């Protein structure tokens, strides 16, 4: 009450609104850091960054735009923990709408950034539902190495890349087995050989300067990767399997300068990956999938390896997911594992907006006897700050802490209820359009009775 009065006083002397600074007041604010929501909180944004948020009172400079969120909820934008957002307009039998490698000479060297289409409909649909950033992984083609994934924003502009080449994605479970010719043994030999070839390149080759556009020209976080192009004089052994580009792409992985996302589901496969971590201590491994993670949760926690998991996989959908349960995420969390939620093999090109419903379902498990759920605050964190932290970007995106990028969503209600909707979405402090192909169709067909002209004239 006091705070509301204070804001009212500030408004009384308000000058014309500034696009640079604004405050969202009166809403229930959830910071995305695992804490519980704060009634009647405040979020202040300046120049695309969060100034302060939460249970705060801040003297606003004159001219600050104040957005009343009374009765609404305010959170950081949802961060898709693992997705293929922006890679496919239509998934099946629609030439030109998909941009993933199923066949081609390269693997680890592939860089997903050139494939991302910021004008893709699924980006708009997910933006309209409060998803503001996404970790985007390439699909594995012929090799266990799928290539390099990126972090993108979903803003309505032509600059989608937040962090290019943030991680290398490798399949070491059932899919990896298939790519490697039929066995996990083969996949692991391929993996070891690839790191051997990268090590050899890294040892002999001196990097040449890339002339790529870099941070000053793109609104992106500077990537810790060094250039992946190496001089012709770099010596290689005779018995190589990888192309030069692919081997070079694994040098930053080997040196721990690029994250390594490893998709595995089965308990045994998870332990194999933890062994890799012991063998190559510099690797910055993130487990993706880990449906059976709960059965070896203490060992994942001890290894300090983060997990990006499917939230509610509970079917023995394959022989690597026999122990599937919706309690997987809760049990790993309880064992001390850093867990984020992603859409792994779950319409990863488009239905990212299901993540908040899934997060709500994890909260529901707290009231199911024998199940392990997570708190509301932690469930929200798993779709905001936790994926960001898993790749060392927690200081940049995923929460409403001071200094973070101002990715903010105002919701009609509790965002973990599927019935709530995003009413305002800000990315880097810029208010986003929420119109989509779908909302336009609704307007056209909301009323069917025949009029003076066909439906095609309603636009």
């Amino acid at each position: 009450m006091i705070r509301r009065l204070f804001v009212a006083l500030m408004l009384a002397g308000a000058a014309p609104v500034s696009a640079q600074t604004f405050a969202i007041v009166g809403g229930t604010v959830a910071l995305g850091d695992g804490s519980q929501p704060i009634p009647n909180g405040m979020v202040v944004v300046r120049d695309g960054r969060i100034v302060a948020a939460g249970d705060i009172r801040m003297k606003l400079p004159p001219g600050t735009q104040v957005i009343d969120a009374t009765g609404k909820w305010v959170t950081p934008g949802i961060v898709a923990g693992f997705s293929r957002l922006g890679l496919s307009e239509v998934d099946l039998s629609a030439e030109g709408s998909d941009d993933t490698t199923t066949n081609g000479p390269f693997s680890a060297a592939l860089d997903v950034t050139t494939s991302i289409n910021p004008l893709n409909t699924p980006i708009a649909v997910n933006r309209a539902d409060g998803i503001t950033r996404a970790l985007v992984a390439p699909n594995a083609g012929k090799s266990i190495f799928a290539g390099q994934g990126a972090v993108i924003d979903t803003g309505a502009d032509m600059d989608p890349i937040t962090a290019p080449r943030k991680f290398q994605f490798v399949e070491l479970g059932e899919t990896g087995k298939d790519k490697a010719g039929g066995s996990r043994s083969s996949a692991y030999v391929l993996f070891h050989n690839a790191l051997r070839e990268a090590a050899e390149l890294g040892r002999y080759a001196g990097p040449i300067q890339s002339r790529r556009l870099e941070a000053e020209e793109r609104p992106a976080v500077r990537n810790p990767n060094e250039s992946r192009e190496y001089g012709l004089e770099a010596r290689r052994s005779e018995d190589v399997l990888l192309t030069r580009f692919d081997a070079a792409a694994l040098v930053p992985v080997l040196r721990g300068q690029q994250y390594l996302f490893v998709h595995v589901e089965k308990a045994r496969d998870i332990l194999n990956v933890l062994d890799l971590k012991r063998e190559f201590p510099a690797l910055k491994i993130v487990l993706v999938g880990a449906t059976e993670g709960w059965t070896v949760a203490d060992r994942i926690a001890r290894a300090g390896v983060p997990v990006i998991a499917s939230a509610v996989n509970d079917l023995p959908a394959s022989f690597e997911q026999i122990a599937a349960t919706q309690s997987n995420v809760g049990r790993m969390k309880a064992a001390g594992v850093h867990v984020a939620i992603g859409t792994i093999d779950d319409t990863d090109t488009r239905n990212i907006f299901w993540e908040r419903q899934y997060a709500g379902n994890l909260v529901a498990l707290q009231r199911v006897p024998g199940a392990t759920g997570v708190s509301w605050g932690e469930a929200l964190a798993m779709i905001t700050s936790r994926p960001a932290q898993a790749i060392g970007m927690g200081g940049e995106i995923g929460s409403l802490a001071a200094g973070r990028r101002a990715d903010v969503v105002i919701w009609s209600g509790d965002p973990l209820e599927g019935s709530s909707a995003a009413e305002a979405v800000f990315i880097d402090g810029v208010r986003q359009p929420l119109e989509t192909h779908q909302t336009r169709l609704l307007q056209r067909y909301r009323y069917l009775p025949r009029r003076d002209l066909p439906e095609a004239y309603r636009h």
Partner: protein
Amino acid sequence: MGLSKAAAALALAAAGGLLSGCAELGGKPKSAPAIRINEDPYPSTYVRYPGVPTVIRHATVFDGDGRRYDDGTVVFADGAIQAVGGPGLPAPARAVEIDGTGKWVTPGIIDVHSHLGDYPSPSVESLSDGNEATSPVRPEVWAEHSVWPQDPGFSRALVNGGVTTLQILPGSANLFGGRSVVLKNVPARTVQGMKFPGAPYGLKMACGENPKRVYGSKDNMPQTRMGNIALTRQTWIKAQAYKRKWDKYYANGGDMPERDLAMDTLKGVLEGKILIHNHCYRADEMANMIDMSKEFGYHIAAFHHAVEAYKIADLLRENDICAAMWADWYGFKMESYDAVKENIPLVHNSGACAMVHSDDPNGIQRLNQEVAKALADGRRAGINITDEIAWEWLSRNPAKALGILDKTGTLTPGKMADVVLWNGNPYSDYTRPERVWIDGAEMYDANDPKRRPVSDFELGQPGEGDVK
């Protein structure tokens, strides 16, 4: 030897009598009377499990027929609903009383579109039995002969989804995919043990991308949408001729026509005994299928997926066709490109029969949440439908489309006691089934690990009997 002679004499006497009888009538030799073909050769062996007279009090009750009771009471006994009403309802003697304060009671959810059992978990080639994709016209196959009763998915649909009845359909590779089967979600050793007693058969038909892709890629008909329609019409013409042959036989007797299993199914459709469940996404294609149904004289019970149903909701209402839809699936193929999140409420709002469906072993576990999303999206578009009316999308309308509304789908006295007690508002992501009854037998209790089905497949495996 003597005995044999006597028998021969008797036979001759009988023959003589028959001949003389004909001569007396003065007509042609009479045809042998028609023999009726058994239309239910794989009958249901489902028998309801024992229950106890039960009264749930102080719950919020949606009866599935559009009514809501705050502080409501639901009474069931002997497998059937006895009464639904307010707090004053009397209880039968020795009834178990359940306090439903803060909880919700609804009819069990009915999924009108599932492939559990015919595309089971684990999803491996050996168990992939949903599409007989060897010819686009396969009305002779019956989904029940593919259903693996040990699919672990059935138990998830029950305990997480509150699904008590479901229709298992063949896939959509074919124009005529085969017969569907309606199951009670009660574990059994055989599919017969799950079959919903008295439920009519359905026939899965498909239009659009799938048949033309599957066969066109092999350079077979159909390769186009016009090929889809032509081949489907040609098949109905054959079915009409087949039906005429059998109608004549049943009327006049004589030599039995040669049976054709495929045509038997189509004849059943033309006789109104088998219901049409038509996979169709686009508005223009649904309109074509409606015209086809009129051309050959059958009725479409439901369009399935019906992503563009909102564009022709008036047509659906006028032709009394239900639409089974998702809340928000879109764009995974071209024919789903024009999805809108308000599809279900728009169809309902036009006066047509709207349903939610899963087509998915994960989605079937949260159909109530799918309705919650669609309902809220509709309200934001100005379509104000109450919570209790929206429950019709989950049980009443699917029961109607399946031809079992006289048996289940609402909490009407005398109907099967297929009941879910939810631990909160079922339109919340925070809510789960607490107890589920099928025909009045308690098949799930969240507080009793022994009231939870575990499939044969999961026995002795990691996580057996775990909360899934």
